[in-house]
């Protein structure tokens, strides 16, 4: 906790993230290269889905990250609300476009898999609908930041939106158990172990870790952007405040 509080200092975060970023980029590139190779060239076709199973190697990790990113956003929002950490608000703000992108990718790739497998691009299934709601929650969260000019107030309102929306996370996760859905039940994290053969599970997990590394890398870059933007705003405000009296004197 003490270390976390230490890194809540923007200047310290900027120094630490600058050292960390090259490593994050390298690890992400390696993992993505390995994951793509395993997914496209090593994993066998599924006995039922055939080669269309290769869509799963982008669909499943993006769906995992869509939910994980929202969880990160909700936790950061809670920390921002309770402890008023500037970096927590900025982290939540920076995570939102990443989460929206993962969610869009999960929905689009799922649709591309659904057409040949289910015979439909879209069904109003509990899992699909709850993920679509997640996408709208991301858009709503981003819109709040865009709509409110004062950053502190925008952060508070957006944090409440993020926390209220986090109710949707367990709904997404358990939707396949609570309702009769077309979407397949849990097949990786479940009682009794994964239901997927290791020849497909391993590439899937490598892609999952690669997507997570990508998320960390882009999040670090975007938080740095937010810190710099905040500093630029502060400088602009100071300049406006110091320029105002001289203008008034000239006017007089």
């Amino acid at each position, binding site marked *: 906790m003490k270390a976390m509080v230490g890194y809540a200092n923007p*200047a310290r975060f*900027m*120094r*630490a*993230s*600058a*050292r*960390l*970023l*090259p490593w994050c*980029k390298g690890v992400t590139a390696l993992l993505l290269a390995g994951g793509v190779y395993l997914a*496209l060239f090593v994993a066998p*076709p599924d006995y039922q889905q*055939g*080669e*269309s199973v*290769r*869509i799963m190697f*982008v*669909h499943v990790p*993006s769906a995992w990250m869509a939910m994980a990113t929202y969880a990160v956003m909700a936790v950061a929002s809670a920390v921002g609300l309770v402890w008023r950490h500037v970096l927590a608000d900025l982290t939540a703000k920076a995570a939102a*476009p*990443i989460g929206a*992108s993962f969610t*869009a*990718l999960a929905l*689009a*790739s799922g649709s*591309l*898999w659904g*057409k*040949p497998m289910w015979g439909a691009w879209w069904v109003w299934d509990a899992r699909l609908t709850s993920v679509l709601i997640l996408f709208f929650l991301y858009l709503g969260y981003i819109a709040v930041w865009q709509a409110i000019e004062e950053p502190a107030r925008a952060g508070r309102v957006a944090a409440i939106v993020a926390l209220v929306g986090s109710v949707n996370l367990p709904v997404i996760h358990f939707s396949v158990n609570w309702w009769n859905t077309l979407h397949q039940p849990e097949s990786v994290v479940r009682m009794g172990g994964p239901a997927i053969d290791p020849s497909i599970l391993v590439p899937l997990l490598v892609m999952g870790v690669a997507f997570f590394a*990508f998320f960390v*890398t*882009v999040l670090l*870059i*975007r938080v*740095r*952007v937010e*810190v*710099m*933007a905040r*500093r*630029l705003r502060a*400088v602009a405000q100071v300049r406006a405040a110091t320029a105002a009296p001289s203008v008034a004197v000239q006017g007089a």
Partner: protein
Amino acid sequence: MGAAVKAFLGMGGYWAYVWPAWALAVGILAGLYAISVHQARRAERRLDALGRPLRGRGALGRQPRGGGTHR
């Protein structure tokens, strides 16, 4: 060789679904990364112009090219 490549690209008849899904993944992730890096560089340039000593070793985790005014 040609037949193997053709079979790979054909994806067992699912090419029209598999490749667009992967193209979307590459497009969305690469686009997100490129936009983030572009924004970081722009913010770094604006801060350089103001001469604010804020950014550790540069927005993208390296020394600013040619040195910055904040050194």
